């Protein structure tokens, strides 16, 4: 009933090898991931565990089971795609033809921002490590979603939800929210359309790549609401809403508002609080229409006949969310919930007045302001390669080259984090989810961790022939509070395992 819930982001990065436009992106992505693994891992590299189990619950917070597992059954590396699980609980791997950073599970928007930013720094270190490989490949990574030549790649969000919430309600109430959320969550793009884009600027990287309202696909016929049902938690209790619509954000406030407002809207849907029907006539074309108008004046038609701008549609949700939090908590609402509501309101008010007032907070406005500056000063048209270059280079994750980074350093984009917090999050897990157990096990007992996943940590222990699987089916167990003391006082993986199982 607040912005707090189990959530996370997963970002596929654009990749290019300097001077080699024909370089194989899978090879380059693997080089990045493997180079990071080699430069950071202390012992063996744990594999990703694809096994799904029906485990037994342990009162201390684990679902314990022991079983014989052939190591070959645990492997996911038949495809030769690199994969590494980090001490911060994240997964760094090759997904399709891109390196991807999947955040550890967090419980609130600020932590989502923190580990999302840590992902950028991990990618930066990884690309630098790859430059030390034979042949010194100059691999550069971009936190964006399109090459402007017809191709898009994703920046997904995940939200744990109650299974009891009807999926139809999620579709009904979330679709209008997603159609309009881009007014603050868009990352900005030069070009309109998929292939051979027309001239112009739009507020979202992804909008033009969405073609249907609801569906299971993620790589073609992309849906506004994705139906992938892979809870990575007890499926009786939970679903994991897999959101594929969003842009990869660099601006911390964009990410913060994106996940914070979404989490609040989901809380209202779970509580059956939204009784207004805000359904949009033709949501796919509305999504694009909103994106294509950086003045934010375009009207979209609701099924009840009203015509609203994207900002006004967001204000409807904001209005509901304010009442919802007031009714449920009054002044006892937690800090982040109040902060998200205040910022959401402030941003929408200013976007409605003059979007440029948000240039220090939101990606698309910061990028747009920069582009307009170049157009004015140099008399450039939207098809000018320089403007396309600025679009791409905004997302270059190198601090010396990336334009987002230059704007931050010039004090033109506000932050919520400090470098120190982000740096720590590259190595340390969140303390309040199962990512804590996963990350600490990899940090402390890496020579004995054979595999891991969101749902498990699998140990290879001396003196035991079979691998020992510790399922972590509940995202809110295995926290520092639950197992911090146990991990601190267990010298070896055998100690830990024996104490977990009561042996």
């Amino acid at each position, binding site marked *: 009933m607040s912005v707090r819930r189990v959530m996370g982001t997963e970002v*596929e990065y654009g990749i*290019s090898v300097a001077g080699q436009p024909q370089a194989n992106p899978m090879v380059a992505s693997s080089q990045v991931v493997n180079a990071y693994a080699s430069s950071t891992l202390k012992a063996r590299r744990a594999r990703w565990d694809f096994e799904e189990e029906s485990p037994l619950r342990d009162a201390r917070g684990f679902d314990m089971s022991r079983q014989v597992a052939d190591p070959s059954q645990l492997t996911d590396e038949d495809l030769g795609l690199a994969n590494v699980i980090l001490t911060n609980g994240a997964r760094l791997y090759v997904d399709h033809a891109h390196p991807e950073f999947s955040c550890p599970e967090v419980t609130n928007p600020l932590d989502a921002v923190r580990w999302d930013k840590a992902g950028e720094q991990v990618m930066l270190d990884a690309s630098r490590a790859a430059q030390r490989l034979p042949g010194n490949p100059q691999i550069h990574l971009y936190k964006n979603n399109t090459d402007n030549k017809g191709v898009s*790649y994703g920046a*997904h969000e995940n939200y744990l939800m109650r299974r009891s919430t009807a999926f139809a309600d999620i579709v009904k109430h979330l679709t209008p929210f997603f159609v309009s959320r881009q007014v603050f969550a868009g990352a900005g793009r030069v070009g309109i359309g998929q292939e051979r884009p027309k001239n112009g600027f739009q507020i979202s990287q992804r909008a033009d790549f969405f073609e249907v309202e609801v569906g299971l696909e993620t*790589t073609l016929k992309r849906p506004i609401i994705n139906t992938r049902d892979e809870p990575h938690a007890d499926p009786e209790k939970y679903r994991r809403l897999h959101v594929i619509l969003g842009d990869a954000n660099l601006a911390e406030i964009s990410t913060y508002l994106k996940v914070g407002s979404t989490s609040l809207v989901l809380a209202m849907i779970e509580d059956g609080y939204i009784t207004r029907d805000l359904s949009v006539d033709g949501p796919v074309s509305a999504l694009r229409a909103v994106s294509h108008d950086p003045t934010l004046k375009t009207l979209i038609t609701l099924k009840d006949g009203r015509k609203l701008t994207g900002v006004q549609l967001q204000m409807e949700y904001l209005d509901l969310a304010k009442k919802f939090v007031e009714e449920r908590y009054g002044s006892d609402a937690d800090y982040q919930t109040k902060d998200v509501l205040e910022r959401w*309101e402030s941003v929408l008010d200013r976007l409605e007045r003059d979007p440029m007032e948000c240039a220090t907070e939101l990606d698309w406005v910061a990028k747009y302001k920069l582009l307009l500056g170049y157009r004015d000063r140099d008399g450039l048209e939207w098809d000018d390669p320089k403007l396309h*270059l600025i679009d791409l280079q905004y997302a270059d994750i190198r601090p010396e080259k990336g334009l987002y980074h*230059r704007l931050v350093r010039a004090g033109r984009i506000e932050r919520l984090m400090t470098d120190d917090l982000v740096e720590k999050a590259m190595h340390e897990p969140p303390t309040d989810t199962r990512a804590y157990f996963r990350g600490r096990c990899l940090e402390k007992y890496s020579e004995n961790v054979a595999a891991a996943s969101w749902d498990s940590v699998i140990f290879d222990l001396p003196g035991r022939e079979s691998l020992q699987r510790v399922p972590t089916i509940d995202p809110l167990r295995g926290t520092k509070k639950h197992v911090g003391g146990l991990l601190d006082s267990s010298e070896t993986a055998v100690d830990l395992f024996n104490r977990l199982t009561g042996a």
Partner: protein
Amino acid sequence: MAQEQKQPKKSSETEEAVETAPETDVNERKEALDSDVDDILDEIDDVLETNAEDFVKSFIQKGGQ
């Protein structure tokens, strides 16, 4: 985590003030904005990839999710 100052809440009073702002203020603001933008453009000129056309052409990605 540093937090910025809270934005003033929307009220009819502040809205009106913006709508009726005299033209000269708007022009002055625009000029101030222009020189402000020019500064950052100069800085960014120094880091932009040298051959924009080649760079943009060679930025080719394979599809993802």
